[in-house]
């Protein structure tokens, strides 16, 4: 079956006739639903309105976790710590301002958010800049919650007019007030609900906007593959820290609202039981969804309310525990995700990549186009990369044993050698993926030996890893966009660059498909394109031709040879034909050391090189 690559993204979404009658902006559902809910508020019973307000505030707390966990991939068990800190801070301020100010909550709420953000930034600095493992980071956040729990029970201190009463908590916190003057009346429960609803909607929309912005798109990249994002030159730690601080601000805001709602806050807010509820909210609503946190909180609150009213007595917590287990085992994407799966199953949609398989087969790469993209922009001048006496050890094994090499633009450089020679290891030492045990590396005279990976990439190094590393679940276009965005002026320019790269690779048809549905060769090209779109000054490629067809190899060799004249190109390869087509300078590595250098033809005739490849002992003593 053959067909020409089809064009528009809408047509590529399968199984649906293009009969859209009304196109509305994506951001409309949330405000519309909020307005509808607001209209319903006056008709709700006051005590229910009061209870629902507390559910929504819990939903806000859940939203803070959904932001870091669902969008960034970091399970923080310290959200209640930030919630409580913000709540205490905001309440202390509110109590102190109450005599002079009619509506202290207006100032207390931002203050609580600020305290939450600062605390999150502190914790985040330790976790992200300290490069803690995933599990260690989670346990660390849990530790913070526990420390606060222990300390707050014993802390009995007066701060101005407020009294942090240790285990008794802090009572008589000023609440929601309708108006600004000193004689403004307190809000009725229904007014409080409306107010909380509006705040939640605004925060939710803010989060949606944040995740749709450039910042949010890079964060999504970090979630899918933090390693790849760093290889693209992004300082992932900074993105993670900022997002965690935003999450802390939301949690702190929620805490202040909660304290104002109940007029009371106590150390039990830091307890393990409270900390448990937050992941349940997120899981119930669906970990990938921001609005799901609100749904989860409302569901859990309603369940607890109904059960606690005598229906199951003290078994409410028991049932919640069972629900958590069930959710994790059977509905990891939450109830909303389950509903979505059922709906998709009912609609019987076909796999998108199956529909477009033919399009993939006929994609053809325009090497000149890619070269143009890589060389675009102002001329870069000379690049000098010097590696001096690099040493890398793994316990007793020394894959890189005092190797020195320099790379510059002009001719591509190839590294060859038998298995275990240390070619990939040397490449990784040069690129920054391995920390050196000895030796120095300079780029243009600057010592970059101690620079972290992303900084080297920002200095102009492009790295194509051995196995193609792409964001498998993001679309092909999005992959290229994230790569292009680092060097582009804005999101629009990055999109244009991504479109150009797509055209050069002939992948327009599959632009909206997940990158993981590409065949291996396609992913290799995508990875190469992502490296080149950043206009690097020196490119390290580890076996780039693996998995490609003969024609593709020739195209790649042509591309690299062309690029070699403007950038420094360093390739590790096994395929001798490919190395010959590259036409560059070849170095042979053997047992971690530089063995021979020259052109491929000279090396082919060298008996010593043949020895080490064939395992003969004729001219070279084997160890």
């Amino acid at each position, binding site marked *: 079956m053959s067909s020409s690559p089809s064009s528009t993204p809408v047509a590529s979404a399968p199984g*649906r006739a293009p009969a859209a009658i009304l196109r509305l902006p994506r951001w409309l559902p949330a405000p519309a*639903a909020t307005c509808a809910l607001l209209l319903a508020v006056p008709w709700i019973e006051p005590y*229910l309105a009061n209870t*629902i307000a507390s559910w929504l505030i819990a939903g806000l707390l859940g939203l803070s976790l959904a932001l870091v966990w669902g969008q960034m991939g970091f399970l923080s068990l310290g959200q209640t710590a930030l919630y409580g800190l913000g709540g205490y801070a905001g309440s202390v301020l509110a109590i102190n301002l109450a005599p002079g100010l009619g509506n202290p909550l207006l100032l207390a709420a931002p203050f609580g958010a600020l305290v939450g953000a600062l605390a999150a930034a502190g914790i985040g600095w330790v976790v992200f800049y300290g490069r803690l493992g995933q599990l260690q980071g989670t346990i660390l956040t849990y530790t913070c919650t526990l420390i606060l729990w222990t300390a707050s029970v014993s802390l009995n201190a007066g701060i101005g007019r407020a009294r942090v009463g240790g*285990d*008794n908590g802090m009572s008589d916190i000023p609440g929601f007030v309708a108006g600004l003057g000193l004689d403004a009346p307190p809000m009725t429960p229904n007014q409080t609900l409306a107010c909380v609803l509006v705040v939640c909607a605004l925060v939710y929309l803010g989060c949606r906007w944040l995740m749709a912005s450039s910042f949010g798109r890079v964060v999504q990249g970090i979630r899918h593959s933090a390693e790849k994002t760093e290889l693209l030159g992004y300082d992932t730690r900074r993105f993670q820290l900022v997002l965690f601080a935003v999450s802390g601000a939301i949690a702190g805001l929620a805490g202040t609202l909660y304290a104002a709602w*109940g007029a009371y806050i106590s150390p039990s807010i830091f307890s393990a039981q409270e900390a448990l509820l937050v992941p349940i909210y997120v899981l119930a609503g669906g970990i990938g969804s921001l609005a799901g946190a609100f749904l989860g909180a409302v569901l859990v609150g309603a369940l607890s*309310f109904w059960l606690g009213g005598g229906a199951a*007595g003290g078994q409410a917590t028991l049932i919640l525990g069972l629900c958590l287990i069930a959710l994790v085992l059977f509905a990891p994407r939450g109830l909303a995700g389950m509903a979505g799966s059922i709906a998709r199953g009912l609609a019987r949609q076909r796999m998108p990549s199956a529909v477009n398989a033919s399009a993939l087969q006929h994609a053809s790469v325009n090497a000149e186009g890619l070269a143009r993209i890589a060389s675009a922009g102002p001329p870069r001048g000379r690049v000098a990369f010097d590696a001096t006496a690099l040493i890398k050890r793994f316990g007793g094994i020394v894959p890189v044993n005092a190797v020195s090499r320099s790379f510059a633009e002009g001719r591509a450089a190839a590294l060859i050698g038998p298995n275990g020679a240390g070619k990939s290891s040397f490449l990784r030492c040069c690129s920054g993926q391995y920390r050196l045990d000895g030796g120095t590396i300079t780029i243009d005279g600057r010592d970059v030996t101690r620079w972290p990976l992303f900084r080297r990439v920002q200095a102009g190094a492009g790295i194509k890893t051995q196995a193609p590393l792409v964001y498998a*679940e993001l679309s092909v276009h999005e992959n290229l966009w994230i790569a292009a965005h680092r060097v582009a002026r804005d999101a629009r320019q990055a999109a244009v660059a991504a479109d150009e790269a797509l055209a050069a690779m002939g992948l327009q048809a599959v632009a909206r498909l997940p990158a993981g549905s590409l065949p291996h060769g396609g992913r290799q090209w995508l990875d190469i394109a992502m490296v080149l779109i950043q206009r690097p000054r020196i490119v390290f490629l580890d076996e780039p031709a693996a998995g490609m067809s003969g024609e593709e190899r020739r195209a790649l060799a042509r591309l690299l040879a062309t690029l070699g004249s403007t950038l420094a190109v360093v390739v590790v390869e096994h395929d001798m034909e490919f190395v010959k087509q590259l036409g560059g300078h070849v170095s042979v590595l053997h047992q971690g050391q530089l063995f021979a250098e020259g052109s491929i033809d000279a090396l082919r005739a060298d008996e010593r090189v043949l020895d080490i490849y064939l395992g003969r002992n004729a001219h070279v003593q084997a160890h």
Partner: protein
Amino acid sequence: MTLIDFSHAPSVRDARRTRRTSLLHGLLLAACCALMPAAANAADPVKVGSIFDLTGGLNIYGLQQSRALRLAVDDINAQGGLLGRTVEVVQADAQSELNKYPQYANTMVMRDRVAALFGGLTSSAREAVRPVARRSNTLYFYSSLYEGGVCDSHTFLTGPSASQQLSVLIRWAVQRYGKRIYVMAADYNFGTISAAWVREYARQAGAEVVGVEFLPLTVTDYSSTIQKIEAARPSFVFALPVGANQTGFMEQFAAAGLGQRMGIVSTNFGSGNQQIVVSPQATAGVVVSLPYFEWIDNPQNKAFRSAWRQAYGEKEPIVEAAVDVWNAAQLWAAAVRKAGAFDTAKVRAALESGLELKAPNGPVALVPRSHHLRQSMYIAQGNAQRGFDLVAHIPDVEPVYENERCDLLKQPAQATQFTPAGT
């Protein structure tokens, strides 16, 4: 095919997410519609709210407290109700979880429009309910032993305050055992404030506190505490461990043989079922001061006990918190009759006019200015049969500290908790 197409998203995932989001919004909307209220209807019986820990870690107390309230309400109804209306109890189970208290309190004042709230065991529960009672102008009765000092126009406290219990206990113990005291208490408000009172009454009795230790609520291993007590060589130990681990301290104290060399006194041992749970060797000799013990001999207690046994059986001891609740309910009923109305301001005025009651633990009187009770204190010593022997009875113990600091007659708008200096 959809009529409204939101799916011009940059990726397939986004399209799925948006559809899921619309689904969520719809669900939320539907949920809210389902919560439309039924028409309100006026009720003939007058309701009182009951929020106690019927399940969970504190249910030993909570269950008995709520039973006592029911018993009191049945007693009131048997006498013809209040102002011609029967009294009905709206009950909620706080499940030993603090965040349930404000939730149920709000529900009861808004939905059930209760005339009075009874509830809470721990001080934190009380502090959570107090602001709700104030905001909704509802009377609140807190009936449990606690650290003392609360001064709030809408709150009435019928349990003993720490200073009440300790004033008699320390005086008695210094006379009986000697002048060196070691204090061991849980590290939170109740513990630290009680310890401060021990210091104060020790000073008044000419005794000396030779050591103080505060333990976190989660601690289970008391060996270092035992070690410090031995090193200090006190005449008696004031022990206030709190939580499921309090039995551990008593056991380890007895196992170290310390009970032979020094006295041990407490203000919360025996307030629940501790004496049954701890081994007889560890119970024997512990001295406690509480406002109520089951073995008190007076006609009111006889009647109360038989009514309780008839309603609830023989099995569990009647804890002092239960009697505190009974007293609270009876005082409220008396105030309503005196005021001739259920209105909060009128009932409060009646309560503050000086009410007295012949309670199971002897005569009690509500002190108008402090909202606390003047009541008897009993000192008892644990015996080897897991019970207590009454040793002393001190009638009409005033809540001196509360009376001194808190004057709600002159300053009715107060809402605070006074604590002794240094805490």
